[in-house]
């Protein structure tokens, strides 16, 4: 055979197919969504084992988190442990149940399998089959243990991706998908729980239920991190932890800062001197978070603040499509 004609480097570490970028982004978002649903259910299962004086139905907020309450009520009626688990974890008719998300995530992964490390696909495949195979027993008797295992599957999935994949453009799309989804879910859990635990501004400063607020922190794996910094449960501090913490990986600020960094890397790697719409919006959002303090948020209404945040997150998602997923011009 003659000397091979190919050189040592391939352009594919610097660029990627738009379709692949989009699929990778959604693969990552959907797996992250599944993980967050498991977290919500797990903490609620724990909480419901500790009877409290509060008369609030602990399953109700989980439905509100989704924003699809009407759909839920039409199908299931009153929220109970069983039907919320069925809805959030295994309902194949619901577009964002854990199972539907994992199935779409895996389908997206299948369509970009060549661009991912083998171990990562196999991990996601195992994750999906674990959920699918557990469906029957969990529908009759949901256990916190099962949802804890989901959390570990998810942590391993992200860990496998981070430690087997080159941190090139493809990985940065994984990261953007993961962090935008996480920011969204962190804000939703705060929104709904806050509303239930503390409906009126005047209640700030009154005695609060330590257990309920701890649960909130547990849902984002933040209980220990919070305790190390603050020891005592304090509403303003908890809200600030959720929204503005600089280094805790599930706080909204750190999700947005991470997504912004990845978007910057994507543009740097592809040698573009144009700043995309998505990156500009992310940057603006991060600055806004940085310059807002918790008292303003509480005074102005937590719900309004989070509403606006979610609109901005959606805009960033749309901008990604225009910036990267529908290419038309020769480079």
């Amino acid at each position: 055979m003659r000397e091979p004609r190919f050189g040592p480097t391939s352009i594919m570490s610097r660029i990627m197919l738009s379709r692949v970028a989009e699929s990778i982004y959604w693969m990552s978002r959907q797996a992250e969504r599944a993980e967050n649903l498991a977290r919500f259910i797990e903490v609620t299962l724990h909480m419901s084992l500790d009877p409290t004086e509060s008369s609030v139905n602990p399953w109700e907020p989980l439905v509100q988190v989704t924003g699809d309450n009407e759909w839920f009520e039409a199908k299931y009626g009153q929220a109970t442990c069983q039907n919320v688990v069925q809805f959030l974890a295994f309902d194949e008719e619901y577009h964002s149940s854990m199972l539907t998300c994992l199935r779409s995530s895996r389908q997206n992964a299948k369509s970009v399998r060549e661009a991912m490390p083998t171990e990562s696909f196999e991990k996601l495949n195992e994750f999906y089959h674990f959920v699918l195979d557990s469906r029957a027993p969990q529908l009759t008797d949901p256990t916190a243990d099962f949802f804890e295992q989901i959390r570990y599957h998810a942590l391993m999935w992200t860990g496998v991706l981070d430690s087997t994949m080159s941190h090139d453009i493809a990985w940065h799309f994984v990261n953007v998908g993961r962090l935008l989804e996480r920011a969204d879910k962190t804000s939703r859990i705060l929104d709904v729980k806050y509303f239930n635990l503390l409906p009126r501004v005047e209640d700030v400063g009154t005695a609060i239920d330590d257990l309920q607020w701890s649960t909130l922190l547990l849902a984002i794996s933040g209980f220990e991190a919070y305790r190390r910094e603050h020891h005592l449960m304090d509403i303003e501090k908890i809200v600030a932890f959720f929204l503005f913490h600089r280094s805790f990986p599930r706080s909204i600020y750190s999700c947005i800062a991470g997504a912004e960094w990845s978007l910057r890397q994507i543009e740097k790697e592809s040698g573009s001197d144009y700043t995309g719409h998505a990156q500009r919006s992310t940057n603006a959002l991060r600055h806004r978070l940085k310059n807002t303090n918790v008292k303003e948020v509480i005074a102005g209404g937590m719900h309004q603040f989070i509403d606006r945040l979610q609109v901005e997150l959606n805009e960033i998602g749309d901008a990604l499509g225009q910036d990267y997923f529908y290419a038309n011009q020769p480079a």
Partner: protein
Amino acid sequence: MQEQSQSQSQSVRLRAKTPLPSLPNYQTDGFYDELVDENNIARPDAESLISLFNNLPPGELSRRQHAIERALYRMGITFTVYSDQAGTEKIMPFDVVPRIVSAMLWKHIDAGLKQRIRALNRFLCDIYNERQIVHDGIIPAELIDTAPSYLKQCKGLKPFNDVWCHITGTDLVRDNSGTVYVLEDNLRCPSGVSYVLQNRHVMKRNFPQAFSASRVRPVSNYSSQLFQLLCDVAPPHVANPTVVVLTPGVYNSAYYEHSYLAQRMGAVLVEGRDLVVEGDLVYMRTTSGLQRVDVIYRRVDDTFLDPKTFRKDSCLGVEGLMDVYRAGNITLANAPGTGIADDKVIYAFVPDMIHYYLDEEPILPNVPTYVCQKEDDRKYVLEHLDELVVKAAGESGGYGILIGPHATLEERAEFAEKIRKDPRNWIAQPTLELSRAPTVVGDHLEGRHVDLRPYILCSRPDDVWVLPGGLTRVALRKGSLVVNSSQGGGSKDTWVAAEAGQAVASLHNNSPE
């Protein structure tokens, strides 16, 4: 044959002292068996494997069978049974007992395949240009011109390096005497090579000792060979070609293979919608805009490649791709038009092609074939439908086929009618007693019929490489002769034994084979 292999390795020399291992309770039922002879004694190069079977504790074979099935499931090498919504998935059936090809037999197969590909490639160059073989009266013009796979749009084309059939997967079978025949030449988009590589990967993990002792030749370098081939046949003016694999998409039954090969080669896996033609060049849509593409390993059928030139309703292809191809700015592997060479009627002429183009005697015989277009042949076929296998000329995958001895009177009458109506579309062959290989059935071994599909790469008319291995397909149903995976077939790993001096696959190779 035995003398030759005795000189190869120490382990074989020890044979003089210990009797050859045999499979005590196994029945060959009068068929040619790939692993043992008619007295159940191990064939050359199968001794270590047969000894291993005899020494395994009871139940171990089915335990390993299950372990491998689980591994394939975990790797996601599955196809969906109903629809993905139902979530029911199955692995491609796999049998843990490998098929062993002795070094000497492989030498014969290797030489025969190289010869055949050289002749077929010459035929393709000729038939789309000068048509000398028609002018010289070897193949009747009407057989060519009536073949649906003869693409008029490809007349006058000259692919780079004069290579048309870059990648081929030829189907071989053996009869009761052990003679190897070519059953089909698959020159379009032959699939299955990913199973060769994955089967090897799981077998090495589950039968390490027998594998090492059997001195098996490696298959793991297939993807490097394929990538190098694709670079070698790139448009000559491109220094550092960009290679892509074109797939019909995630719902195609061979999608896993497309994805696997792209991943192994580090090439981009694209769908038709990822590509666009602008100004006589092909580009792919990337996150940094459009990027030029130079070589397409296409796993999309000819007529779906370009709606402008071929089927207007294709949404799998790229509008204008054939214009770029004609302008010499893109390589398509395989070249469009190769289907004419594996038309089942044209197949009957391959031995003549070997004589005509190479002036050589065919090393691997064809299965005797009756061409129904010829009056004498047609008459014979119609009178002997109960003995023959009848095949449609343009079909593959085990479709459009009548196995005479297993067919009902009505089915035979139906085929007789079809043959009379459109003789050009039919050929017939004697029903071969396909060779068998031991296969796990429950907790024991039974013989099942097998074929063999080796993979051949051709980067220049005289530079042909055969992967030492191949896909052994096995008809898992007792007595069945149909090995196609679409019809209840499974696969086995194929161990080609090394001769002295040939590379042996390493067990401790990190890159999965």
